């Protein structure tokens, strides 16, 4: 195997795939490698940890066809460190030799036949706007339960009478995002995709205008530009968001997004260990209160508009901020029923994105 290409092109392709590589201590050490294959004038790269695989293909000047699996992070570090210009990669004996400028490195390799490739999902292409999907992921993916083996560790993509929707929950809050024009999946279908893989996908997007999705359990494949990500899906589904969507929220706080975020950040200073931040709401004024046994307390009057009954409600400040930060309009609506029922966070003028948060009983 031998090829020549621009250092930057190779570095960019490696940056896309390398984060999917497994750890060196895993039972199968080859997973810490990046599989590189030259076929004619095309180079494909792949990293996998058995649950997901990311691949990327770039044009190169191919000299000899072949496959090699150098250690991924090492190979990535070397290519990034080389001077700009042409770089040549060649298999010599059991090593890969990387040369660029005046430098050349010998990198040991793994046995290529040990590298197990998770095949892409065998299903027809469906496609959706990549930028919109990336936006939706940014709003939803952070609410995924961040715990291996937890049934809620994924983002659910579903298509029902109301259209396509992304959903995520960690049992304390639930984030929803509608994709009004998207036609992915068939009506009535839903699939739960690991949050970890989607965080990688979000990082890759958008490499092209359209994002192609192929889904055939137990895997789903996302293709953007010349890069693709295939991951195992999660067996199961999230709780039905109907319980939030159908609920009544008679009390509404409308406030400038930056203004409330700044206030919450100030409140958070005294809340590193105890997380509850209190909002005292009445039509005559809105007050934020945060207090900790050891770190003192803070109170602040917010410039905000409130309609509804007098209400004191406590939230985990991190959860509240996370929901507000990804709202795309200048002002944000927080709608509530009482101090024990879920509250909703919406943009000022639409409900494409909604975030439901359970309060803290204090």
């Amino acid at each position, binding site marked *: 195997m031998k090829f020549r290409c621009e250092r930057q092109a190779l570095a960019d392709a490696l940056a896309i795939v390398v984060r999917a590589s497994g*750890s060196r*201590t895993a039972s199968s050490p080859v997973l810490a490698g990046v599989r590189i294959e030259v076929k004619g004038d095309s180079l494909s790269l792949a990293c996998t940890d058995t649950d997901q695989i990311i691949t990327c293909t770039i044009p190169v000047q191919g000299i000899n066809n072949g496959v090699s699996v150098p250690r991924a992070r090492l190979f990535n570090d070397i290519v990034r460190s080389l001077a700009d210009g042409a770089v040549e990669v060649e298999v010599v004996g059991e090593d890969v030799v990387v040369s660029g400028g005046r430098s050349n490195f010998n990198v040991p390799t793994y046995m290529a036949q040990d590298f197990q490739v998770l095949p892409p999902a065998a299903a027809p292409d469906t496609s959706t706007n990549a930028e919109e999907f990336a936006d939706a992921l940014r709003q939803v993916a952070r609410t995924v339960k961040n715990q291996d083996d937890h049934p809620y560790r994924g983002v659910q993509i579903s298509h029902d009478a109301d259209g396509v929707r992304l959903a995520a*929950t960690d*049992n*304390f809050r*639930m984030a929803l995002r509608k994709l009004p024009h998207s036609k992915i999946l068939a009506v009535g279908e839903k699939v739960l995709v690991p949050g970890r893989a989607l965080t990688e996908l979000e990082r890759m997007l958008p490499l092209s205008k359209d994002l192609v999705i192929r889904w055939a359990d137990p895997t789903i494949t996302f293709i953007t530009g010349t890069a693709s990500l295939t991951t195992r899906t999660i067996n199961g589904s999230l*709780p039905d968001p109907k*319980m*939030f969507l159908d609920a009544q929220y008679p009390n509404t706080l409308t406030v400038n997004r930056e203004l409330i975020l700044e206030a919450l950040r100030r409140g*958070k*200073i005294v809340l*590193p*260990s*105890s*997380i*509850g931040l209190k909002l005292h709401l009445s039509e005559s004024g809105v007050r934020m209160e945060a207090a900790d*046994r*050891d*770190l003192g307390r803070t109170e602040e009057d917010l410039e905000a508009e409130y309609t509804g009954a007098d209400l004191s409600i*406590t939230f*985990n400040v991190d959860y509240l901020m996370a929901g507000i930060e990804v709202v795309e309009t200048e002002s944000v609506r927080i709608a509530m029923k009482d101090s*024990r*029922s*879920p509250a909703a966070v919406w943009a000022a003028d639409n409900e494409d994105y909604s975030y439901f948060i*359970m*309060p*803290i*009983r*204090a």
Partner: protein
Amino acid sequence: MDAFFVAVELLRRPDLRGLPVVVGGTGSRGVVAAASYEARRFGVYSAMSSAQARRLCPNAVFLPGDLHLYADYSERVHEVFNSFSPEVEGVALDEAFIDVTGSVQLFGEASSIGVQIRDRVLSDTGLVCCVGVASNKFLAKLASRAAKPKIVDGQIVDGPGVFEVTDDYASTFLEPMSVRSLWGVGAATVEKLERFGVATVADLKQLERRVLTGALGQAAGSQLFDLARGIDPRPVVSSRDAKSIGHEETFAEDIIDLGELRTHLVRLSDAVAARVRRADVAARTVSLKIRYSDFSNLTRSFTPEAAVTTGQAIVSALDRLLPQCEIERGVRLAGVSVSNFVESQVQLTLDTVDSEPSDGDWMDAAEAIDEIRKRFGNKSIGPLSAMGHGRDLGESPWGPSH
């Protein structure tokens, strides 16, 4: 801290800087408590007999030591720690574990907090400390060792001061180490491990869990298996959590009836719970103290599943302990106390949407009782089971005598 006692001595004796200094017993049976790095170059270590230290390093300056002074400095160092996190577990005068999980928002990531702590200790006390940063106590301890200066070929080589062992790096860091570096591995364990050809952590990782538990016993073997993989579940136990809230009462006449004793406990619990709620905390542990007529004491604790904030919850914990009281011996004093405080906040979950409040949930009632007492006085309302037995509700209501 590096050679803590010596470092403190050098602050008041800067003329000794750069010399071999030994703090410890200077008499014939004395033992070295601390040695400067200059003395360590000669092979002097703490816990060595002072006589041997003198033979190895005859030019060393021997100081008798001043524990009061060291304790003063220790307190100042701990003040720095406490300013970065309330979760500080003191291990020795010069050593502590600090859980900075909750401090990251305020002070930056853990390794940066390590650098800040080191800078602050130096500027506030003039002492140099070394910080190990890792995701658990075991790795942090080893990391702090890697942060220290070393003696290499008789020369002092500065350490990095702050050393971080990330979870990704942990196995690379651990594997070349001798198994002696692991917690709980002494001479006897080393000997047993040598029979398996185990010298390093990397060797140790080749052994299956059941092999280790077979050779070393269930607990020790399992712990060693985990440690070799950088796993240590022990939490940082902060000393601030040792505080407690309690009431006790000496009775005019010894009590020999369990029902009567329980009545008093209900009243005491009610008062303790009110103070817990006023402090806006919840307590994990409930303790019962009994003093018998012969002045011997019985103290027992129970940790219910959920932290307590109500008298009802305290009493139901006490009911678990009460059978251990030998009432026939006569009880002259009873005390109820709670400790291990946590925030009295409960994050509601999706599962609680539309569900009914759980049975035995007295939180709402307790809040209402607090309100009523605030307006109408302590004797306006109280648990029925605390009344009777000849005690006048009006005279000794809810705050028992101290």
